[in-house]
């Protein structure tokens, strides 16, 4: 750790103490309370957002918490801040504080019935808040969709880069395979297209068949992943990174040469099947499946392969099967994310899945932190919101984002949340006021500090 970091840490300790004091009253608020408060804030925004925004001198409701308005028109900084304070922060603070007892009781009852019921209740509140928030404008809806797709991509890359400890650069390739696989199917089957011909099936069937096409797209990506998985038996680390990089270039070049699928001009006309609900369900499914996967015996085997392949082998871990499973599994989810992305943007070309995409995906994983499901979620959402919020800077956006990421890497080289196990039960549990949650929770067996 350099000297600069130390002095900065000292300077910030005062601020930290102040923040901790301000946080004190919100300690006993359970997750349910937060979600309910957010839902209420969003309802308030839908009800009185526009008049409040007008009264504060803005033409319409700020799309992304006022960031865009602040950057576009610095004169409106105060009204944007005031808006965020009035519509989001104050209601959330009030509701959480007032509903502490009720929220704790309800959360306790829910978790008393079953964890599944409790998670479903939390998710439905979250979904309601997200649905109402993104109902305000198409732009918000797009940001929400992109953020959720980014979560799937980041989680699947974290399986390989974090849990298995490789530096895989092939993810844009897997996404491309999934995107093309799913779009070719939907466009051939349900859309009249110049390139791929008349619709073969009635379009009304489309939305029901969409999950199947996504799964087929994921399977195509998984088959492609064999190209990277098989060399991984013999080599690791840097050379595997190059193999995966070569794979990415090969996939991109392959689609540039496949004139059947539009070649370099790309493939358009994807039907509008990827609604907010569909993507939300897929994202939840992905988080659930990947979280269970990494906490299973197979997930522990991944960590064992990362920390010492020979030792793992000696301890009866089948390293080949482990590596193969991890690559195919990650590629499947990357393919699903690619398929969803194709149906959100409704146009893909080989350039979509190039070096820039790779830089984005890697940045999201390392921003969030390796070996942590929660980290990936935070990293993906944080990166997407940041890159949308900085959009008014136009070209300077791509200077600001890298600078921010470099600073983050210098001051927090492992990312925001790294090497933490994600246990939904812990979040769903009610928090009692007497129970002090400030001390860090006991480390589970899977937690591993990087060394």
């Amino acid at each position, binding site marked *: *750790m*350099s000297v600069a970091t130390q002095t900065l840490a000292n300077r910030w300790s005062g601020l930290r103490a102040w923040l901790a004091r301000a946080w004190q009253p919100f300690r006993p608020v359970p997750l349910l309370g937060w979600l309910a408060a957010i839902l209420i804030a969003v309802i308030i925004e839908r009800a009185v957002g526009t008049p409040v925004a007008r009264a504060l001198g803005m033409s319409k409701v700020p799309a992304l918490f006022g960031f865009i308005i602040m950057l576009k028109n610095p004169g409106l900084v105060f009204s944007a801040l005031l808006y965020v304070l009035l519509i989001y922060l104050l209601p959330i603070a009030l509701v959480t504080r007032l509903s502490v007892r009720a929220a704790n009781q309800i959360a306790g009852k829910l978790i008393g019935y079953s964890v599944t019921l409790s998670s479903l209740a939390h998710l439905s509140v979250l979904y309601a808040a997200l649905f109402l928030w993104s109902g305000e404008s198409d732009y918000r809806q797009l940001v929400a969709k992109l953020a959720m797709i980014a979560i799937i991509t980041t989680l699947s890359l974290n399986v390989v*880069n974090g849990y298995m*400890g490789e*530096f895989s650069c092939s993810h844009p390739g897997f996404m491309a395979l999934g995107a093309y696989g799913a779009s070719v199917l939907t466009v051939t089957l349900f859309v009249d297209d110049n390139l791929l011909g008349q619709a073969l099936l009635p379009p009304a069937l489309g939305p029901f068949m969409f999950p199947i096409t996504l799964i087929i797209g994921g399977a195509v990506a998984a088959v492609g992943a064999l*190209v990277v998985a*098989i*060399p991984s038996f*013999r*080599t*690791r*680390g*840097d*050379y595997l*990174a*190059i*193999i995966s*990089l*070569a*794979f990415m*270039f*090969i996939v*991109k*070049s*392959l689609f*540039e*040469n496949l004139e059947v699928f539009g070649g*370099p001009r790309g493939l358009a006309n994807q039907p509008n099947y990827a609604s907010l609900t569909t993507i939300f369900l897929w994202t939840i499914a992905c988080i659930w499946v990947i979280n269970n996967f990494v906490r299973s015996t197979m997930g522990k085997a991944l960590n064992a392969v*990362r920390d010492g392949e020979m030792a793992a082998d000696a301890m009866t871990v089948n390293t080949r099967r482990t590596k193969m499973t991890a690559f195919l599994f990650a590629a499947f989810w990357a393919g699903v994310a690619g398929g969803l992305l194709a149906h959100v943007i409704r146009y893909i070309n080989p350039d979509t899945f190039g*070096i820039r995409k790779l*830089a984005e995906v*890697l*940045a999201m994983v*390392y921003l969030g932190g*390796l070996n942590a499901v929660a980290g990936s979620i935070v990293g993906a959402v944080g990166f997407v919101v940041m890159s949308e919020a900085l959009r008014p800077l136009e*070209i*300077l956006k*791509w*200077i600001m*984002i*890298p*600078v921010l*990421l*470099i600073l983050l*890497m*210098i001051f927090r*080289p*492992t990312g925001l949340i790294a090497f933490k196990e994600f246990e939904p039960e812990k979040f769903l549990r009610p928090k009692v006021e007497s129970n002090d949650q400030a001390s860090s929770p006991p480390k589970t067996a899977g937690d591993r500090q*990087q060394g």
Partner: protein
Amino acid sequence: MHFFFQQLANALQLGSFYALIALGYSLVYGVLMLFNFAHGDIFMVGAFIGFFVATAILALGIFEIFVLPTWLMLALVLLLTIVIAMILNAFVGMTVERIGYRPLRQAPRASAAITGLMIGIILETGNLWLLGAERLSFPELIQTSTITIGGVNLTNKKIFIVLLSIALMLALHLFIRRSKWGRAMRAMAYDFVVVPLMGVSINRIALLTFALGSALAAVAGIFFGIAYPVLDPYMGIRLGWKAFVAAILGGRGSILGAALAGFLLGFIEIFTAAIFPSTMRDLIAFGIILIILTFRPHGFFGEPYSAQLRL
């Protein structure tokens, strides 16, 4: 046969760009065990520095006070451009090291790779922002003349580029093998835990490594400007990533390996473009690299992978 030798000449020229860039990757990778993902863009910056230096020298007319034939004057301008651009780009490389990599010396390697990627994006975008999107054309510093040997057309540019590239690679090889600094670099590549204890400063060696690599990248940039006189901010990504693959293909830290792999990549690309449709170039080139790495995973001259991963 004609066709073969004609393409061979083209392949040698393209290969020398790849080899010069690959050397920069290979040096950093060999000494610091680090992917310098920003190197492709350092090459791009080098080309632009070369462009500005050459234009400035021509505009100032430094050599016009002497009465010289045009070709000699242009040759002097070219030499001066190369020297100045090498020095300036070495400073660019050292700045990148100081800002992006030194603070992360103790961090996981992947974090440093991310900083490298981000610095690359900053360099590209910064260039786009400062100079706009229009392409610049490099001043003509060698007047083209064609020599025909046995029916094969060679331009003097090609001969100059290939010969000077090989000379620079040899110079680098000698520097690494014979000089004191080169010995320090090799020692660092061997073990960067113990060697700093012997009084070799890792920071100085890192700066030197980046300076050498960036200087070579500047030469590659100027040569690229001479051969294909159009510069744009994304040339670094187009060539750099391929050169990166070539560097690793050569084997960890192997100068000879990186140079050979660079030339090999040039050959594969030129000959696939000559035989198949040119859009298939990347597909076939990377396909061949994938096959080579599958059967020889540690590259041409690298030792089998044994080091403990520091991820």
